[in-house]
């Protein structure tokens, strides 16, 4: 989705799951842009671009694999494109299952797969408007 993911959007997404009364446990991962200080310069925002066709394909593959591997009721992934300021949320992964043990394993699996397999590229914009390309650890 374009720009930051708002806390309202997340709250509303949780609300929508309250009609699904077979769910006993939700687990939510949120990635938030850090105001890292690198060589004395502070990150003000990250600009995300993606190879969108491949990213959508990979999100689809990760979704299929997760449903096959884990007993999930629902699963949602949202990643920002464009500019996300420090403190704002750029990744929202939401899994739900009847039982709690499943959601912990599933969420970590999905987040690690997104980091490793989805072609999204972050450009860290410093307060002085210079930039560097973000590298995941």
């Amino acid at each position, binding site marked *: 989705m374009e720009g930051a993911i708002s806390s309202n959007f997340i709250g509303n997404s949780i609300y929508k799951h309250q009609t699904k009364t077979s769910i006993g446990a939700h687990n939510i991962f949120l*990635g938030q842009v850090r105001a890292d200080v690198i060589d004395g310069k502070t990150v003000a925002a990250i600009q*995300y*671009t*993606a*190879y969108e*066709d*491949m990213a959508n*394909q990979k999100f689809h593959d990760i979704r299929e694999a997760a449903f096959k591997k884990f007993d999930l009721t629902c699963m949602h992934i949202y*990643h920002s494109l464009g500019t996300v300021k420090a403190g704002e949320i*750029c*990744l929202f992964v939401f899994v739900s299952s009847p039982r709690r043990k499943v959601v912990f394993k599933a969420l970590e699996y999905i*987040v690690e797969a*997104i*980091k*490793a*397999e*989805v*072609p*999204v*590229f*972050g*450009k860290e914009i410093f307060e002085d408007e210079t930039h560097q*390309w*973000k*590298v*995941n650890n």
Partner: protein
Amino acid sequence: MNIKVKYFGQIVDATNTNEELVNVNGEQISDLLETLNNKYSQLKNKDFKIAQNKELVSLDTKLNGSEIALLPPFSGG
């Protein structure tokens, strides 16, 4: 063979374009890469993977005419 090639992230710093048609002599990904390295001198310093038709491929994969993308390290999330 004319191949559509897309560039992403810091690769664009080397190519100054997001997308172009590239004429390749040869049948493999490695042949395309040689063409691109000759065209863009800064490309040799970049770390990237190559996708053909949205799947990562290796240097000895055959070109099949589908879209190619040069993908620097992913940094989503």
